[in-house]
């Protein structure tokens, strides 16, 4: 029987990573879609680095940042009593960082596509900034945001190099499906590799289908 543990771990890791990307990325995308300021192009470039850096380089950078001897890593260990490194939450952080630009770019494009004059019209009709965001900006940017969520989730599920660097490949603890498939292939366990691959493919297709389901058919133009 196929051990689905790595798949569940992958879903858990990718879900947490995607949630992190949404919480951090959505406000950032909105900020970066609004009026320009001097450092903006530089910041956008920096945030998109995970897209162009080799995953191992990214993982190594995270290791330096979050490792026990680093300032941030030491603080996390002090507060939470555990380190992110070689822990499944470390895998989540790694895939969140790797997937971040894949959420940020479509999300920013979605906010850019919202006509700011519509937001002004809403304000003139008596709505507060928060209300304008909820009633106009987010509904109009919804499709782009959803596309970003699906892309980020798929990337997080598929992450290999960055996760391996930060969380290692500990079966039952940090071994996600991607790592487990690699192990299975190395050990010549073709049945396991194929089984896990199929399940992961199904998960990805289901995520895509769920995003499609949110799209309503355009109303007939009469």
């Amino acid at each position: 029987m196929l051990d689905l543990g790595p798949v569940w771990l992958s879903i858990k890791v990718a879900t947490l990573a995607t949630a992190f990307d949404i919480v951090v990325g959505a406000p950032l995308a909105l900020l970066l879609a609004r009026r320009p300021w001097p450092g903006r192009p530089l910041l956008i470039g920096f945030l998109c680095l995970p897209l162009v850096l080799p995953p191992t380089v990214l993982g190594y950078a995270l290791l330096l940042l979050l490792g026990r001897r680093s300032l941030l890593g030491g603080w996390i260990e002090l507060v939470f009593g555990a380190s992110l490194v070689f822990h499944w939450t470390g895998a989540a952080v790694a895939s969140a960082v790797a997937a971040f630009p894949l959420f940020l770019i479509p999300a920013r494009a979605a906010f850019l596509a919202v006509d700011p004059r519509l937001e002004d019209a809403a304000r003139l009709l008596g709505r507060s900034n928060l209300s304008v965001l909820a009633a106009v900006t987010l509904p109009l940017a919804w499709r782009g945001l959803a596309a970003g969520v699906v892309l980020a989730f798929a990337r997080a599920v598929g992450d290999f190099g960055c996760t391996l660097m930060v969380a290692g490949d500990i079966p039952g603890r940090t071994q996600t499906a991607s790592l487990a498939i690699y192990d299975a292939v190395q050990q010549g366990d073709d049945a396991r590799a194929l089984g896990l691959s199929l399940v992961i493919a199904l998960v990805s297709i289901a995520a895509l289908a769920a995003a499609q389901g949110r799209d309503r058919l355009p109303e007939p133009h009469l």
Partner: protein
Amino acid sequence: MLEVDVERRVSPTLTLQLQLRLGPEIGVLFGRSGAGKSTLLRLISGLARPDRGRITLDTETLFDASTRISAPLRRRRIGMIYQDDLLFPHLSARQNIAFGLAGQPRLEIAQRVHEVAALCGVEHLLDRRPATLSGGERKRVGLARAIAPRPRLLLCDEPFSALDLARRNALISRLMDIQADQQIPILHVTHSPAEAVALGGRMFLLENGRIAAEGPSIDVLANHALAAVDWEPLTNLFHATLLDQLRDDGASRVQIDGGPALIVPRLEGHAGERVHVQLRADDVLLARASVPGLSARNQLPGAVERILTHGPNVEVVVQCGEVSFLASLVPSAVRQLELAPGAQVVLIIKARSCRITSVEESAEAERRQAHTPGTGKQ
């Protein structure tokens, strides 16, 4: 009452510097593109800030540079309609109209939406999305959305410029209905003389950021050498009531508010129904006395009030009861008839020259028109 006294540098070559007072009436802000019309609306609505001066509406100061008061957009209670409509595309017409009513009891919202939808003739469109509406329908939904929260001022930023003349005139009639109903100042930006004349009201002629002239639209237009402006055919717009059907020849009679009765093409409807009458100034003939044996069905006595010359054209304003008719003539006709202010004349108007739309039906007619291919969307 809107009072504006502001200064704002727009570009190195244009500084807006003007004073303007507008009571509960229609004010027409007229000028070429680049004269500062839209900038002025942005200053009043709060989308931009003046460098100096103050803006007050009724008793409230919206902006004062000296005390650094600037009321936020959402507290200004100003309605606005736009050239691009700016309806919320993800909401139905009903939700668009109710947008400015958020926070009120549900029953009151429904009631108010119904009320303004009737006033703007969009009751049958309430469940449709903006993308499925024709240009004129979108304008009317935008108008309903703007007046639903009972604004203290309505700003119109060239809202009708993309529409054809007939549809534009129908909307102008509606805007005049709304002014009569709400009794608020309406500041309407346009660069169309025909639109300005049809709206009547007080015109503010904006040139290089300053108000160059102010007064009745037709006077300002005629007196300020607007030969360079492209004059479209001017239109008389009247509000009227359907009187009766003439049995013998398939025509109807309408009573113009404060003016004469007019024989018009047959109009299905019941006596007492409110209608809008459109009559092009080109189609109005003048005679010094009534003419026997004429096919035109209307001969109305009146008195010349003013004669305005612009370029090769002459507009004669004829008082008839409490309303004035506009007749476009050529200068030689004016000479031949020896027309001068005070002269008694007869207006000759063919029934077929009058375009009648019932207030309720105009919405219906436009919808039918919108459904024929090629005319629906712009």
